[in-house]
Each structure stands twice: as C-alpha cells, then as structure tokens.
C-alpha cells in the first residue's frame, strides 16, 4: 500500500472511564454496553505494529487516560518506538509527582481541556468540581517544560467567553490553544438543540480567534475549528477514511475514527485477533470508504472530493441513515436541509434555556 494510505497518528483510547460527565461528550452514548479494556502488553504490541505501519504520533486519550494505573508502562513503551506521545486529558486525577514521572518516562506533550473559564460554569458542565485542579495541572506541565495545549469545546453556552479563554491560555503559557467547536455526534447530537451556537456567535468568535492567532504568532498557535454546520462544505473528516489515522478503542477494536463502529454493517477487528498491519490494509471496514468508487452524486464528480473525501461518514449515517451518502454538512448534498433546519432552530432559540440530557453515571470500568 502506497503513501496515500499511511497512518501518521495512532489515537489510543485507553479507557471509556472518566470522572467527568460532559454533556457534549462524543464518546458512544451506549457506554454501558462496552466490555473489557485491553492490557498494557497488548497496547505496547499495538504501538510497535503502528510504528511499523508509519505512525509517528501517539495520542493517549479516553475517557480519561489518567485512570489507567499502567499509564507509566504505556508511555515508557511508546518511547522505545520513538513515538511522539501526547497525553489528552482533563487533568483529573493527577498529582505533580505523577506528571513529573510521566515526563521522565518519555511523555512529550500534554493537552488539557477546560469546559469554561468560569469556575462555576466549568464545574457544572463537567459534572464535578475540577477547574482549580486543571489550572494546577497546567502550571505543573509548563514548569516541567512540557508543551501545553489548552483545549476547550465550544458551544452556545461558552462561546461568548472566547476572549477570556485566550487570556487564560496566555496566562498559563500554552503553546497551542484549540478552540474546538462541538462535533455533533454521540451525546452532543442528542443535545444539539441546546449546544449549537447561532451563526452570529460563530462569526464573532472566529474573528476574535483570527486576531489572536495573528497577534500571538510564533508564541502560541490559536486554532479555531468552525463547526461544519456553518461551513457549507464538509470537513475533511480524519483527513480521509483509513488514510492518516488509526483509532484503537479501549476494547482493542481498530477503527478509522472513534465512532466508526456506530455505523451498522461495517466489520472491524480487534488488535488481539489480527495484526494491526493486516487490519489496516485488508479489513473490509477500513477499505469501505477508501478511494472514490464508493462516492455517490454529487461527490463523485466534485472537484473538492480529493480535499474532503465526501466528509464525515458517521455524520452521513447519523443524520441521513446511510453512511455512503454525501455528508449533509455540504450545501451541495441532498440532505443539507437537515443542517439548515438545525441552524435555523439555533438562530431562533439563542438565549432560551434548554434542558440537557447528561451522560449518565460513571463511565463503565472493566468488569
């Protein structure tokens, strides 16, 4: 297989467990049905096989990866394969001693997410007191010389805080700031009416972010991800299906994206049952939406097909009922009215409180 299909990044979802209960969590909303977590030896074998396939970046995520007691072993293992290891975390639960240990074992960078710059809002959105500790963790990271990315998932309730978020990122000397709009899948899709900002909110935020990015160039990268509900063109989801990323979920299922297994009828395989390189090259699930043969109209002849690969397959399935259809985020797609009506609804209801459906209980641990 040529470089067109070469994974550069392995997204290792170490656990679905998480102390937080964010209502925009994009983890599968049927958490309770998930089974056992794969062990450290299996993960290290996955790192080895991923590196052989071309992977150079490793994102340790979850759920909350800090809940794995063997995170130390995993980071040490990843270092042996010269992977650049990023820890994607809420910062809960962590001590400065543990972070220092992880750093010494080979951790390269840390990404910490906040829910809001306001303690009370952040704690409420996260479902527990956590904001103060996150600030501590940011300080520990930078004092250890770990590059720090500050991440906030934006939605209707916190998007107006964008200037405060930038100020906070500067105060904690973040290297990168990810202003990531909610992806409306999983729990976030259930709560879409409560979360989707109005167009005007998006445009204001984008302007502020662009100004900050120019002002802070060379010091901090400010990345604003416009929600695809407002772009009129689909995102290049995962930079193409089975093209640049491999996700391995807590149970060891290898996937092109972390929600690919929510699409019925696709076959994915476990790293415990087949070599990762065979899964990457030969599994029907990874091959399903590669190339152009599967594209339908109008993507099939669209000049942008090499840029966006027809958009997000999960979004096509969850909004249109067919993963093979064009992503309805595209204004040329037959299903675009679904996006338009969500936008119209958002424009009409800004300022009206809406009830949220919370991710229930504690995420399930291995049983």
């Amino acid at each position: 297989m040529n470089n067109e299909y070469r994974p550069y990044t392995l997204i290792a979802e170490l656990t679905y467990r998480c102390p937080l209960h964010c209502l925009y969590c994009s983890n599968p909303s049927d958490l309770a049905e998930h089974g056992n977590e794969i062990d450290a030896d299996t993960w290290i074998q996955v790192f080895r096989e991923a590196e052989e396939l071309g992977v150079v970046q490793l994102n340790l995520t979850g759920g909350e990866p800090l809940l794995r007691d063997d995170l130390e072993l995993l980071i040490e293992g990843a270092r042996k394969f010269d992977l650049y290891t990023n820890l994607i975390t809420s910062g809960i639960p962590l001590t400065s001693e543990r972070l220092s240990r992880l750093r010494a074992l080979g951790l390269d960078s840390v990404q910490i997410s906040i829910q809001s710059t306001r303690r009370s809002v952040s704690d409420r959105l996260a479902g527990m007191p956590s904001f103060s500790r996150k600030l501590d963790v940011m300080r520990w990271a930078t004092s250890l010389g770990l590059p720090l990315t500050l991440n906030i998932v934006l939605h209707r309730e916190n998007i107006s805080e964008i200037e405060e978020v930038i100020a906070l990122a500067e105060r904690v000397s973040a290297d990168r700031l990810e202003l990531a709009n909610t992806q409306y899948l999983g729990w976030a899709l259930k709560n879409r009416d409560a979360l989707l900002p109005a167009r005007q909110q998006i445009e204001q935020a984008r302007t502020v972010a662009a100004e900050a990015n120019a002002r802070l160039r060379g010091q901090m990268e400010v990345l604003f991800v416009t929600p695809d509900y407002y772009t009129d063109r689909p995102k290049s989801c995962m930079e193409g299906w089975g093209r640049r990323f491999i996700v391995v979920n807590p149970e060891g299922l290898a996937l092109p994206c972390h929600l690919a297994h929510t699409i019925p009828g696709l076959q994915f395989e476990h790293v415990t049952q087949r070599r990762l390189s065979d899964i990457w090259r030969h599994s029907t699930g990874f091959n399903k939406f590669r190339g152009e043969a599967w594209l339908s109209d109008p993507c099939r002849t669209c000049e942008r097909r090499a840029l966006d690969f027809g958009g997000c397959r999960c979004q096509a399935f969850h909004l249109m009922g067919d993963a093979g259809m064009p992503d309805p985020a595209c204004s040329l797609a037959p299903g675009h009215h679904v996006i338009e009506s969500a936008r119209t609804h958002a424009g009409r209801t800004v300022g009206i409180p809406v009830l949220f459906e919370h991710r229930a209980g504690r995420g399930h641990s291995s049983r």
Partner: protein
Amino acid sequence: MIFVTIRPRLSPKVRLRFDRRTGHYLLLYPETGLELNGTATAIARLCTGEWTIDEMVDHLTRSYVDASPGEIRRAVREFLGVLADRGLLQGVT
C-alpha cells in the same frame, strides 16, 4: 513581525526523527509535524544555539556546491521563518 535570534536553537518540544518509509526526516511537535527535504534537514541540524545564520550559510555553501550563497541564504531565512512562525525556535523575540 518575527525576528530570529542570531543563534537559532530548536525548541525542546520538537523531535527530529528519521522516517524510514520516505528516507526523509520529520520534525515532530505536538500532534503534528513537518516533513523536511534534505536542505531543511541540514538547516534544522544546525539549529543548536551554536551557529549564527551567517555561519550556517557558510557551512551549507560548502556542502551544497551547486547552490549559490544567495540561494542558500534565502533557503535558510525562509525555513527559519517557517519554524519561528510555528513557535519551533527558542529565543525568538
């Protein structure tokens, strides 16, 4: 406007890694990276905090006999600009 210090040094957050798949070097940093061509790799290797830009140009001119000092100087400035814009050089003011 970004000015590069006299003796550029790669930020500790980057890692230069050989990519045996392509034979090129990758400059990795949080969650992404740059694929370097031969010239960029040679320049990156000199970003140790010990070489001035003029010394880099002199050194590279001797290694790349088919490029003029002017071309090399442009390549060095351009690539250092790329690195500085991404916050990958230390001591940038």
